[in-house]
């Protein structure tokens, strides 16, 4: 595959690894922000190939994992009780809400459809005026422009049967919240390449300066990650804390101006509940008043009860970088992808699911495995 294979070159990977090993003299803890990066680090076996002194902390960048339970419950209510056709990205379907997931609601007869783009949901709404269609607008800054455009398209077509259930979250406020935490032990950050493709990386300058952490905008292929790690370790070893851009083939300093404008036109910043972390001020997006008729929460004013994650799940501490999945007594025992106790075990981008999927339950005895 052109433009992918080049970034998976085994010889270049070895050269990056040799250089990382050569320059690493002290223990460093690096957080990769995005779930896609977690997936790639684990899938390619990169973490095991790095010096033992480098520890990876898996950040909050899995949108599925941080969507609060009560919003999933609301989505389930809309399609089960309010008779709505709910369109969603695929990996949102398996995430458990308070009682069940969208997948089990679908199995019980609710109209839940997987789409790849919110514009497919708009098209469906236009073709089915008899149905009320809601798109579950989950994601970081990456998916926000397309979701914003879906509302613009629906407005242009004067559709009255389309709305979005917005659960958008923003990366910089979450990073600030994590870096402010007294227990925070993060030395360097790999910023999420695709989020920065949309937003650019100017908003990371004050974070790097205030918390004295190097932040390197990093892509997702093995060589991207290895180069991003090398750039971060170089800064750390030199005592630097600046923002650098590894993913320069895609990311520009100011991001994608048109995409940012689409977000600004349709959304406004709001406080947001993060599953496993709690409420972070000004860390979410919701529809502006001008588009209120496309806001599913206003169209269907139902209040779902807040549901706690439960005492057993340590996903919040994992996302803050305080713990690893293996530190959890439930990991691989009571909590597995088929029976998740928390959201991080659900999406393949979720830290626990990525660890379970690619590391497996290797640290358990065979008796436990078969149990």
């Amino acid at each position, binding site marked *: *595959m052109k433009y*992918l294979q080049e970034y*998976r*070159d*085994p010889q270049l*990977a*070895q050269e990056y690894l040799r250089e990382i090993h050569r320059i690493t003299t002290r223990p460093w803890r690096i957080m990769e922000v*995005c779930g*896609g990066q977690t*997936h790639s680090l*684990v*899938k*390619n*076996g*990169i973490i*095991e*190939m790095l010096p033992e002194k480098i520890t990876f902390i898996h950040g909050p960048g899995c*949108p*599925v994992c941080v969507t609060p339970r009560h919003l999933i419950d609301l989505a389930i209510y809309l399609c089960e009780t309010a008779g709505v056709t709910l369109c969603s*990205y*695929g*990996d*949102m*379907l*398996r995430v458990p809400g308070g009682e069940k997931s969208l*997948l089990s609601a679908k199995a019980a007869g609710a109209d839940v*459809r*997987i*789409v*790849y783009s919110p514009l*497919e949901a708009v098209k469906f709404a236009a073709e089915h005026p008899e149905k009320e269609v809601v798109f579950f607008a*989950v*994601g*970081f800054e*990456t*998916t926000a422009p397309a979701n914003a455009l879906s509302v613009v398209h629906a407005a242009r077509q004067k559709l009255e049967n389309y709305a979005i259930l917005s659960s958008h979250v923003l990366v910089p406020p979450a990073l600030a919240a994590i870096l402010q935490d007294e227990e925070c032990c993060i030395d360097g950050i790999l910023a999420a390449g*695709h989020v920065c493709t949309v937003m650019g990386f100017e908003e990371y300058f004050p974070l790097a300066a205030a918390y004295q952490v190097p932040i390197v905008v990093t892509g997702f292929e*093995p060589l991207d990650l290895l180069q991003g790690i090398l750039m971060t370790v170089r800064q750390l070893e030199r005592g630097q804390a600046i923002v650098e851009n590894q993913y320069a083939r895609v990311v520009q300093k100011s991001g994608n101006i048109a995409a940012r404008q689409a977000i600004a036109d349709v959304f406004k910043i709001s406080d947001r509940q993060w599953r496993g972390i709690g409420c972070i001020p000004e860390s979410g997006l919701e529809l502006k008043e001008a588009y209120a008729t496309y806001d599913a929460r206003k169209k269907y004013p139902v209040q779902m009860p807040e549901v706690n994650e439960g005492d057993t799940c340590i996903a919040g501490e994992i996302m803050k970088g305080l713990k690893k999945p293996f530190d959890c007594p439930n990991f691989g025992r009571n909590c*597995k*992808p*088929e029976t998740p106790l928390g959201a991080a075990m659900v*999406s*393949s*981008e979720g830290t626990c699911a990525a660890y*379970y*999927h*690619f*590391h*497996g339950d*290797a640290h358990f005895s*065979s008796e436990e*495995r078969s149990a």
Partner: protein
Amino acid sequence: MATTNGKVQLHCPVPKPETEIITLGHGSGGILTNQLLDSGVFSLFQNQYLDERHDGSVLRLNGKIAFTTDSFVISPIFFPGGNIGELAVYGTVNDLAMCGATPEFLSLGLILEEGLTMDDFRKILTAIKAAADLVGVEIVTGDTKVVERGKGDQIFINTTGIGHLHPQANISACRIRPGDKIIVNGEIASHGIAIMSVREGLAFESDIRSDTAPLHQPVLALLDAFGENIHCLRDATRGGVATVLNEITRQCPLGIDIRETDIPVQASVAGACEILGLDPLYVANEGKFLSFVAAEVAGEALALLASIPGNSQASIIGEVVATHPGQVIATSIIGGRRMVGMLPGEQLPRIC
């Protein structure tokens, strides 16, 4: 009542027996059922067993036989590279082949949904006939039912197959040994991606076609040449190659190592998997199988397999190991290692 040249003509509204769609009447056991079977099924599949028109067939069988059944509920029923008809034949033929048997007889159970067009039904029957002829199996018994609209998905098919075991066949997961090489007979993941490319909501333009194909020829060729050195055979259908490998490690107390770089995937399929966020190791195949072969004959077995048309991309993808029992470990393209586990459910596309 109508008038022609001022004369009144009376018409008796006799129901037209030939309809262009399947109706509940076709499953009633009456005239419509008989017409459907006479014109569509018996005439097409005629052989000495079906011509008896009995409820079952009497077969003369000696020696070890393999016996298998499979049901086919695929949606859409027509897809790039095939349709549910040939899939229903090859699926059961391949299950027999994986036992090391020569496919000989099939049963054919059809569950039709009211409203299925006769045209589609005929196309599917024709595909079944062509696939059976290609393999050399005879359809010797069957059944047809019709369900109300909304109670099925156009057509469901069940086929059951019987065939004599190859005299040298000794196929079992228990016969796998450390050092055995694992051979796949070609590029993986085409079927699942071809189906996904035409599913509602996920449709995308591609030239990817299902790999649906009978596997008895390559299997019998391997058994002719290497006999008991072929330790285990599995077709990598639902859940793909990764699921089969995991099932094997659960049946025998051994581990499996595979190398991502040695797993053949057609470039367009690999590209589609990247876009959709799917791992080709977990995507379904309908014409791919894994053979676990004694190391000393692996090179020759690969060469033989690759010489059979349709199998030219065959590749040794890994080996059986005594370390890490119960686990499948993949070496990534850059040399890192990871565990390849079982899927918890359907492989769902990722957000970003």
